[in-house]
Structures are given as C-alpha cells and as structure tokens.
C-alpha cells in the first residue's frame, strides 16, 4: 500500500508515492536524486547519512520517508545559502577535516546541529557532540579542529552582522 508524501528538501517541495518501508535516505538519494547523503552502515551507527530534519540532525537510515511527510529536510547540498560554502564547509576544507570524504556530509550536518545548540563548544563537547559519526581515514583530529574553526568563523560573522545592524 503506497502512501503519498510531501517533503520539503533544501527549500524545494518533493511529492511522491512511496512504499511505507522506504527509508528517508533512499528517498533523498533515489527519489530526489540528492546523493550527497551517503549510506555507510545501514543501521544508524556510522552517521554518514545524517541530515537535518526541521533543523535537527537525524540519521536518515533510521527515519522512514513517510515520517518526514510534511516536514523540512536540509541535506549537505542545501546547507550553503548561496554559491559560497557554509562556514562549517569552509572550515572542513581549510582544516583538512576529510580524506576520502565519504563521512564528511554527515559530519558537517551533525556539527551544524551541535553549533546551533552550543556556539562555542569545548574540545570535549565537540567530541561528544559529533561522537556518533564515524570516520575511517582522518584520525578525527582535523575534524575537531575544523569544528573549532567553524565555531570561530560563525561567531565572528554573527558579531559582524550584529555590528552592521547597529
């Protein structure tokens, strides 16, 4: 019994008739054609498929497409508002927070959730905050550095924006 869903992804509405067993990650990759959300472990352990569901980081391999009906998703392709990269994306590039890059979209979106809740996390808070995302290449140190750098960038830009508004 197929179900109709309406999911807003990166600001664009996607309507489709899906099987209730279809996972959100498959909806994103195969129905919406957004392959930046990767499949790693299939069992919500590695975090490669992390996306933002109404702004909150979720592992899209443990969400059904039908559960996302009527809700809003941000994938890695939609994180940056414009052609430019989001400060977290810039920081991952500059700090070399990636090698093969397969875990990177999930890492970045999980870091986004963390920085929304805690704009200036300590090193330990970063490790705890994105500890559910696994990486096999980098040794994590540069990922932690990237999140620190992203936090600095975002705080600076916020201060600059606040000054401009005054």
């Amino acid at each position, binding site marked *: 019994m197929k179900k109709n869903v309406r999911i807003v992804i990166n600001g664009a509405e996607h309507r489709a008739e899906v099987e209730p067993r279809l996972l959100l990650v498959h909806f994103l990759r195969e129905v919406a054609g957004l392959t930046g959300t990767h499949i*790693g*472990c299939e069992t919500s*352990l590695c975090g490669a498929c992390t996306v933002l569901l109404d702004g909150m980081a979720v592992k899209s391999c443990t969400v059904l497409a039908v559960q996302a009906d009527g809700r809003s998703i941000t994938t890695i392709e939609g994180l940056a508002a414009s052609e430019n*990269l989001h400060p977290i994306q810039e920081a991952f590039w*500059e700090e070399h927070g990636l090698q*093969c890059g397969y875990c990177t979209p999930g890492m970045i979106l999980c870091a986004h959730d963390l920085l929304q809740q805690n704009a200036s996390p300590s090193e330990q808070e970063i490790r705890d905050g*994105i500890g559910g995302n696994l990486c096999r290449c980098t*040794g994590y140190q540069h990922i932690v550095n990237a999140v620190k750098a992203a936090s600095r960038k975002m705080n600076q830009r916020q201060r600059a924006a606040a000054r401009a508004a005054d």
Partner: protein
Amino acid sequence: MAEYKWPAPAERTLIGKRISRVDGAVKVSGHAKYSYDYNPKGLLFGKVLRCPHAHARVTSIDTSAAEKMAGIKAVQIVQKPGTEVLWQGDDIVAVAAVDEPTAEDAIRAIQVKYEVLPHNVSDAEPPAGAGEGPAGPMTEDDLENALGNQVPDAQVISDLQKRGVTFQVTDDMTKELKGYGVSDAVINALKAAAYHPEAASQPRSPYQKMAAQTQGDPDKGFASAEVTSEGVYGAPVITHCCLETHGSAAEWPSSDHLLVHCSTQGVSGLPDQYAQALKIPAGNVRAHQDHIGGGFGSKFSPDRWGIATAQLSKSAGGKPVKYMLERDSELMTAGARPSAYARVKVAAKGDGTLVAWQSDSWGTGGPAGAGSPPLPYVFEIPNQRKQHTAVRTNQGPARAWRAPNHPQAAVITMCALDDLAHKLNMDPVEFFAKNLDMTGPRAPIYKEELPLAAELMGWKQKWHPRGDKSEGPIKRGVGLSMHTWGGRGHASNCLLSIHPDGSVDIKMGSQDLGTGTRTAILIVAADSLGIPMNAITLNIGDTMYPPDGGSGGSTTIGGVSSSTRRAALMALDQLFAKVAPALKAQPADLEARDGTVRVKSEPSRSLSWKQACAKLGAMPLSVTGKNPGPGNLINSGVGGVGMADVSVDTETGIVKVNKMVAVQDCGLVINLKTAESQCYGALIMGISYALYEEKVLDPVTGRMLNPNMEFYRLAGLRDIPELMVHMMTDPLNENRGVIGLGEPPVISPGAAISNAVANAIGVRVPFLPLTPDRVLAALEQQQKAGA
C-alpha cells in the same frame, strides 16, 4: 635535454608546503560522486543471495519463483550446483530489479539447497603433531583457490613443484586456465607437476607447515645469552570496513562494450579482469571512478559480485545495474586481514645486545592459508630459527590490509622485545637504541627518530619499570614500537598538454583514494611549470586516460609525482625551444617561474605564460611523462617510530589511550598537509585495531558473529587521544626523493599500545585487540601467579 630532478629547496614554490586539497569543495558540498552515487535514469538494483554456511556444496538452485516476480529484470546464477563454497556469505545467485525492495523480495523467493560440509574457522595454535611434514598434493580446489585469491605466481609454481597434484592435468584444463589469464609459467609448472591420485581421497590437515628458516647458529646464540624471554603474541583476523562498501554499477552501451563505475583502488587494472570473466576484449571495457569511500587494500578486483553485476546488466538488455554490498556482506566477505600469532623466544647479553631469536608462528588467511609475517621485524638478529604454519580456514579470503603482514610482525616482534627489555631491567628506549645497528640501512633514520619520539612523548618523565605502583585502580604506562616499509612508485603515465591559448591539462588513469593524489599531481605540475595549480585541468579516474598503477603498497605518490615531474620538464623543453627565439636566448637559458617564461640570468626579459604558449602555433604540445623513467626522483624504504601513553582501569579492563606519537620519514614530502593527515589517520586506525577490531566467528556454526558496525567497532571521536605527528623533512631525507607514506604509520600503534598496557599493569596481554575481557584475564593470571 631536461635534467630530471626535483627543484632545489629554495626554488620550490609549492612542493613541501601545506596545501589544501583541490577536491575539498566538492567533497564538503556533497557534489563529489562515489560509485555508490551513480544514479542514471532507468537504473536497476542488484542483490545477491549469499551462502549461509561456512563450508557447503550447492546441490540445487530454483530461481523460477523469483523470475516470475513483477519488477525482476535479470537473474544470474553466480555459483552453480556442484560448487563447493568455502566461506559464509559467498555469492550464489544475483538478481536485478526495478528497486531495492523488489530485489530483496526476489532473493527471498529463491530456493537453494546445500550439502553442509565440516568447517574450520578457528585459527588457534596447531595441536601438537599437526601439520608435520609438507602439505599434501594440491587438489583442483587448492589450485582454484590459489589462482582466485591472488597468490603470487612464484608461490603457486613452488607449491606445484613441491607438492604435486591429486588430479590429472588435461589439455582442456590448461586451455581454460589460459583463457582466464593464468600465466604460462604456472601452466607449465602444472603440466610438469607430479600426479598423486591416491592423495585425493585422503583427509587433509588444515595446517600447512612451511619450511623452517635458520640463520647463524641459534643454539649457540641462546647458549651464549645471559637473559632469555619467552612469550606468545598475536593479532586476529580483522576487516577493512570501508565506509563506502564494495560494489559497482555496470551497463552495456552496445552488445560487446561494457561501462563500469566501480569502487576501486586500481581503475586501469579493471578492464583486464572484466574481460577475462566476460570474454570480451579488454579494450571494450571502460571503467570510471571519481571518488572512493575507502579501500585500505581491499578494492583491487571487480570481485564475484562485480562480474555478476555486469552479467545482470547484459541479461537486462544492457540497462545499468548497480550493486553495492550491504554492510553485513561487506564485513563477512569483502576483506579479511590474515591473523598471525607466534610463540617467541628471544635472548640478549646482559648489556642488552640481542643475540638470538626463535619463533613458531601461525595464522590464517582463509582457504588459502597465509604467509609468514616478516620475523623478526626491523631488527636483523644474528642468530635465528623460525617456522611458520599456515592454517586453512573457512574465514573468508584474505585481502591486503594497509601494510600487509607488517602490523602483525610488529606486534609479535616489538612485544617480545619489550618483554625482554623488562627482563633485562632496561628502559625500552635504551634497549632499542642499543640494538639500532641491527636495523641495516635504516639505522641512521631510526637513530634520529627514536630520541625525537621519546622527547615528544615525554618518555623520560612518563616511563617507569613495569607495573604502575601508584594508588587506585587506574594504571598508566608508555610503550614503543618501530616499523619499516618499502614505497617506491608504481608504473605511471602522465599525459600533459599545453595549448596555444595557455591552458594546460593532464590526463592520467590514476585514482585518488582520499589521500590527496589529485592535489599532489597538481602541486608537482604547477611547481614545475611556474603557474598556479588552478590553471591546470586534471583528469583522472578513467580508462580513457593513460594507464596508471593500482594504489597499493604506498606506491601512488612515487608513481604519479615522478611521471608528472618528467612530463612537466619534457613539456618545458619543447616550449622553451619555441619561445627562445622571441626572447633572443638559448632554450637552456630559460625558466618558467611566476607565470612567465624568462631568461634565468635576466628575469626581466620575459613573456607571460599566455604569450609564451602562443608561440606554439596552431597545435598543442603534448608529452607523456613516465614512471619508471630517467633521473632518481623516487626511493624506497622508510623507518618510523610510534609511541603510546595509556591508562588502564584494572577494575573494568578498559584501556584508554592518552597520547600517541608518530615520527615518520618519507623522503621528499610533496604536500605536508596531506602527508601529516596520513599519519593522523593511521594512528586512529591503529588504536582501532589495537583495542576494538576483530572478525569474530562462531566455531559451531562457522558464521561471523559481529557483521555490523555496532559489534565490529571502529574507534570514534571519543577515543582520540592527543596525537603528535612529526615528519622528518631534513635535507638528508629529502635528497632521497619521494617515498610512499600511506602504509607505514599504521604499523606501530598496535605494538606500542600493547607495550604501554604491559608497562601500566605489569603483565602482558598477549593478543590484540586489548579488550576488557583479555585485560582482566591477564590481570587474573598475574594475580594467580603472584599468589
């Protein structure tokens, strides 16, 4: 003629600097395409029915119900009735369907019957008396296993000569083998092999004892020693657990042309492998890969599932079919690092000078057994006796795992040496330093590295004799290990073109495993041509480009950097010849720097790069730089030192790493940023296999008990300690040329952590991973021995 060498330090504009990777933007924005992401219109989804038994014979397959299901486009029998299956999870039937759930439904509708055969998944020590004498004659299965599991030709030939065969070698058989690409040397050895029909019916021992190797006079060595230490050490079978699983998408643009998008470490090597299996010319196979989500040695072949994917596509009228392994299949079948264990006796004089080594080692690489790790590792101890027994099991076939056999050799050797240092009442740093002259040509490197590592670790402040005597359940300790690796460079072809409009492009069949190969190629090209990296278009990852070696053995950086350097210098030679008249100079007097072509002695006499290229006329200039080639640009042989600082909770058995140090040489560094990153990544991978990773098989059912990432645990963000990486970048090292780095730094962490744990708790935990149960068991034994 250009002189093929690296630019002098003062002339380098990019080489050796910290450069951000060129593919960073596509990777952080989700636009990088992995094989898993290939999603063309009309894509069909593959699934594979896998054997649930560790050892069985397929007796019947009924696919009729699956074939009738709506949405099923192709069904392919991978291993037909009568086939003997040697590990759980091996491919039996593949299907392609309009979507993944339908393919799964079809798999469930297929009926396969098996005759279950006895299995062995235990790589425990050979029982006394087992494996005596040489292994029996080779059966057809033995030969098939050896040929199908990338056993080197030399070993197959030697086995055929020594062991003979249990079957009659027919012309049809040799013709078929030749068709599969088996070399003439192997076929000749097979024809000449002694025929032992009587052996076919005899039961065979799973233990294959290799010939003993003796060097010097071990008995005399041990007799002369003042201190002898004995122990047992080892590391189990682990998997690669790449985040992007193995797999591919295949399609047939015409009836005899195949296009594959395959997750691979060797793009140029794929066509031949597909061609042999599918009986089409290799030139009709095109392979493409933009990005790969990890390989670590496990992704060189299309594998059975990849060939089946191509066959499914063919049956489905050439439509694209994608099949990527599920995580459980990946862990069960797509990569197993051989285990290695050893009983070691090692002895020294009272002053710590090593005099004798004896080891009885064993390990499994699955159905084909496994070769011996290089023992004793790094130290060429004068008197040695060593014997290795390969254990044939139904573990799944072995694959190369980052620095094949070296992490195991390090665990066996460095832990034995650390135990000996303890018996000698010596600080291990002093003990290792005392014996560095036994490390051969790399001794000068280790002599620089060892004190440096000790300083970075704060060894003098942290080290104490074995057993932390401080109060409380948490004990702290430090440990060290040393390692070595080859490197050099694989065959490489760099097709570099300079166009009259000033644009430059490079085409290479190489691949970037995430190590930063694209960035390295562009650094070398841009530094050589004196133009910015973003002025060069780089195309890699396709068989349409000149062939390049597979990325294994830390050979990629040597291969691509030297072929690119040669191409750039050859191109400049030709460009200078065209430009020289305009500058009223001789070609040999010109240089390309800062976006200009100019006279070396008078830099103001110059043309911009664009003006200079306009002198080419109507045709672009195109050259192919090769490796191997003229000039000494690359080298082989690195040495490294690893140290660990750990805390052990003696109540729970939990080990926590506080700090890791890696001091590593790799000759001339092309990109310091990505080079350091290799070491950071290797350290955490080392922590992972030292503390958590093990392919656990149930001896009763023969099945893997942890084929998921919950129980096949990888180190996570909370497990990272303070990491210190130091690259040896002095002129002495740089003058050696470029040497590969991917593998070496992953070798030492396991042994260093094991030694640190022994230093903390005062007793050796013999086997990796150092899980709480193993730590507690060692502590309990220590307590019993004390009481």
